[in-house]
């Protein structure tokens, strides 16, 4: 283990600027760390070592000639959902067997333009459908965290489980991730890392394999708040190739890190105190409230009355869009094809073989809720609920609330193969209970580690902001981070 992989993006950036460190050295340190850890953690599905070294070399050349970009020479891991030219891009699904696109996603293009180095592609739940990274065709990712005194494997959360685990285990300086219902924030909370889902439209979706188009949004998972801010600034852009991306200048998010929260109004939604919530989550939440109060923020109790309908509505809208988005995986043009007697049998065999159980379940749910006779009762109703959820937030923001503080997850990380969740998918879906509202309303949300469970596992708090006010989230999250400290797993791998 090299000490180099301990460095945050900001620290590595300073060392490289001071010529104390080259990108090639840093990249090699990460590649060695991946070699050593990946058989245990399974965070990477592909390591692009040669490409990484070549990119690092070019970064070093650019730094030598004084042309360094904002992320020059920083080695990153990329979630398998992002299209990377000539490199494995399968959304961790068998149906995209051997698929290597001839194009690059806008988000990764932005990162490379700023000088970042690609280490490889990160594991994830198949098509980003899951909260434990157990639905990947490439097997589950193992959380670098373990219960003290136990050697049982825990989930890193999902769907960006590979991203969160790789960041926590120091297998990359930072990682791209995506969040449709909590897929950045929940794994960040489970691994003691920082993850932000920016406002819908902040990052381009071009070149990101679609799950639920109206909810999907890319964001970073990083070691700390500052690194998340640095990464988001590079990832975000306006993009003519995605008409849902927003034409708005990208602010210097890093400048907001450490900014005072004095006088900010922080809302505490009473509806997030759900039944059966563990006492340690409640205590963590209270701790966060106290920290922010001490930092000068005003704490107000607020009501988001339609919160309880968010999860059921989400599990109608997201599968509905997914059932249509995944129709293109038909064996005709790329990826897996299982021959059949006729076209219908080819479709059936290909999709039965290519999609995992959870993906098939969501395609069926989505197909059902859009069917004639059910559309009004399910899809249309869910869209109405969505409007009401959005209005809840608009109302509190109009009342002067600057950000909302909630727990990030209802529990700490659980064991891989948890019998209860395997038996009842709804139990798994409940992981997203605090995060889905944010996607439904298109708002930014950040998960920041705030403490540990009685078992010694990391727990996170979530801050929800006004549309395009990620800066306030970085400011408030850094207050929590400063008070709570950083959380690093003990190396067992």
């Amino acid at each position: 283990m090299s000490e180099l992989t301990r460095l945050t993006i900001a620290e590595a950036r300073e060392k490289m600027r001071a010529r104390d460190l080259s990108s090639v050295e840093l990249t090699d340190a990460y590649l060695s760390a991946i070699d050593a850890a990946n058989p245990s953690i399974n965070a990477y599905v592909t390591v692009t070592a040669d490409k990484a070294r070549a990119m690092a070399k070019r970064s070093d050349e650019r730094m030598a000639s004084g042309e360094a970009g904002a992320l020059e020479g920083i080695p990153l891991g990329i979630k398998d959902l992002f299209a990377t030219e000539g490199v494995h891009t399968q959304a961790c699904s068998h149906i995209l067997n051997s698929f290597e696109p001839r194009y690059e996603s806008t988000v990764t293009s932005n990162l490379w333009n700023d000088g970042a180095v690609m280490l490889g592609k990160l594991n994830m739940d198949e098509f980003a459908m899951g909260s434990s990274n157990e639905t990947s065709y490439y097997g589950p990712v193992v959380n670098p965290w373990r219960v003290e005194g136990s050697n049982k494997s825990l989930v890193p959360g999902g769907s960006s489980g590979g991203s969160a685990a790789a960041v926590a285990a120091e297998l990359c300086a930072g990682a791209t991730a995506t969040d449709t219902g909590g897929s950045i924030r929940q794994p960040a909370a489970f691994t003691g890392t920082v993850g932000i889902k920016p406002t819908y439209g902040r990052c381009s979706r071009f070149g990101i394999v679609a799950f639920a188009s109206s909810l999907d949004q890319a964001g970073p998972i990083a070691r700390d708040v500052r690194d998340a801010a640095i990464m988001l600034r590079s990832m975000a852009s306006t993009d003519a190739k995605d008409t849902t991306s927003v034409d708005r200048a990208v602010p210097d998010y890093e400048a907001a890190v450490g900014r005072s929260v004095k006088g900010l109004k922080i809302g505490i939604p009473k509806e997030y105190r759900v039944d059966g919530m563990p006492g340690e989550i409640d205590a963590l939440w209270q701790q966060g409230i106290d920290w922010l109060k001490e930092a000068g923020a005003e704490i107000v109790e607020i009501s988001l009355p339609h919160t309880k309908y968010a999860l059921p509505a989400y599990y109608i809208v997201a599968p509905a869009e997914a059932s249509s988005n995944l129709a293109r995986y038909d064996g005709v043009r790329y990826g897996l094809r299982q021959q059949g007697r006729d076209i219908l049998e080819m479709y059936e065999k290909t999709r039965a073989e290519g999609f995992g159980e959870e993906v098939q379940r969501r395609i069926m749910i989505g197909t059902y809720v859009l069917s004639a006779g059910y559309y009004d009762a399910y899809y249309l109703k869910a869209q109405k609920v969505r409007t009401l959820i959005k209005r809840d937030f608009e109302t509190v923001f109009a009342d002067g609330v600057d950000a909302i503080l909630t727990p990030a997850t209802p529990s700490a990380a659980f064991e891989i193969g948890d019998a209860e969740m395997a038996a009842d998918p709804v139990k798994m879906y409940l992981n997203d209970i605090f995060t889905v509202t944010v996607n439904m309303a298109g708002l930014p949300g950040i998960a920041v580690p705030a403490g540990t469970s009685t078992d010694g596992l990391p727990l996170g708090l979530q801050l929800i902001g006004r549309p395009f006010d990620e800066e306030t989230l970085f400011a408030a999250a850094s207050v929590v981070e400063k008070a709570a400290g950083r959380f690093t797993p003990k190396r067992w791998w």
Partner: protein
Amino acid sequence: MTIVDTRTPDPKRFIPGATGDWEVVIGMEVHAQVTSKSKLFSGASTEFGKAPNANVSLVDAAMPGMLPVINEECVKQAVRTGLGLKAQINKRSIFDRKNYFYPDLPQGYQISQFKDPIVGEGKIVISVGPDRKGEFEDIEIGIERLHLEQDAGKSMHDQHPTMSYVDLNRSGVALMEIVSKPDLRSSDEAKAYLTKLRTILRYLGTCDGNMDEGSMRADVNVSVRKPGGDFGTRCEIKNVNSIRFVGQSIEYEARRQIAILEEGGSIDQETRLFDPGKGETRSMRSKEDAHDYRYFPDPDLLPLEFDDAFIEELAAHLPELPDDKKARLIETVGLSVYDASILVSDKAIADYFERAAKGRDGKLVANWVINDLLGALNKAGQSIEETPVSPDQLGGIVDLIKAEVISGKIAKDLFEIVWNEGGDPAAIVEERGMKQVTDTGAIEKAVDEIIAANPDQVEKAKAKPSLAGWFVGQVMKATGGKANPQAVNALVKAKLGLED
């Protein structure tokens, strides 16, 4: 949707059956390819006739992570068309996904507009006739809506013994689906509707209307009923690709349905195909097999919104439409309804006429275009685009007639020369001595002089009248070829006392 019957049953359109008269009720859904350089949601070219899969972008092939981006020109074309159909333009419309699996549909859904189309209700006035009295009947046909959607690719089943090939060149090309109300009551009306719609689209430049290239296809909904009765169950005849076939398919389908009903049967709502070889329609799929398309708003696309200024700008630059042009030709040029109707029926003919008539006697030009030019083209089996006589040439001929340089009779010869050999009509008249000399005194003087100077020849000619030609030649020579040869001939014969 409540269907309102806007028509009064008219016995001259009834179809006689064994149990009495029947009335056919027709509604049309026309798919018109939008004239645009690139596709509805991608930058790929729409050029016809390219090698298979030459015009395919990553979006058209539905590669993972690709997103549609609306082509503004296609939106403008749809709005122009809506304006041309005197229709409601919806400033906010929504793109929906129509979901179904087919190899030539890469996304697994077609992006279309379902509940909120870009264009709402409008109308087209069709002209049926002329009848035996030469009268035209104008009928207003309601337009239900117009929406934008993507075309699918093409499956080719005849390229390989065991496999099908797919050509995605058409995949994603913009189509306007133009839906009429069920206001048509005969195959002639349906043909007139399609013809008129095509004319309007061509005037607007929003669709080239080339049915043989697939730029325009019609789905025809046909039902029959006792005159004035309740609407019957309809069958939809899919993808009819010529105006003639639309007529034939309606004739066949109406008789098929009447025969079933008269035998006590009932009509199954179904989709049918027209077989042009056999002249019949046959069942394609029944209502039970109909797809559930699971329409829902496409989350990749924001609602399509524009303001009044956007519409007004397009309206301000809209070309003159056939009905307006016809009215203008009747009122300001003074053409007959019949002549004006013929001229405006085809934009290319109207353009030809307007160019030839510019600064000239419109009525005279109209006669020449309709009787001579269109007659000759028809005889030669050529279209107006292939005419060997340009509008300027035809205008030149008319100028010569108006200036009394040539007679109408000579003009016909001149037209034939221009048709066959080309050239400037005035120069031809000059070179070939076709000019008529109106000063008969000058011609007479020349004849008298030649006769007086050649008494021997006069005697010979009186014995052998065919020698009169010699005198004609001498006169032509003396007048420098400017005299009208026929006039000279007549004069010589009269002076020599010869009869024809």
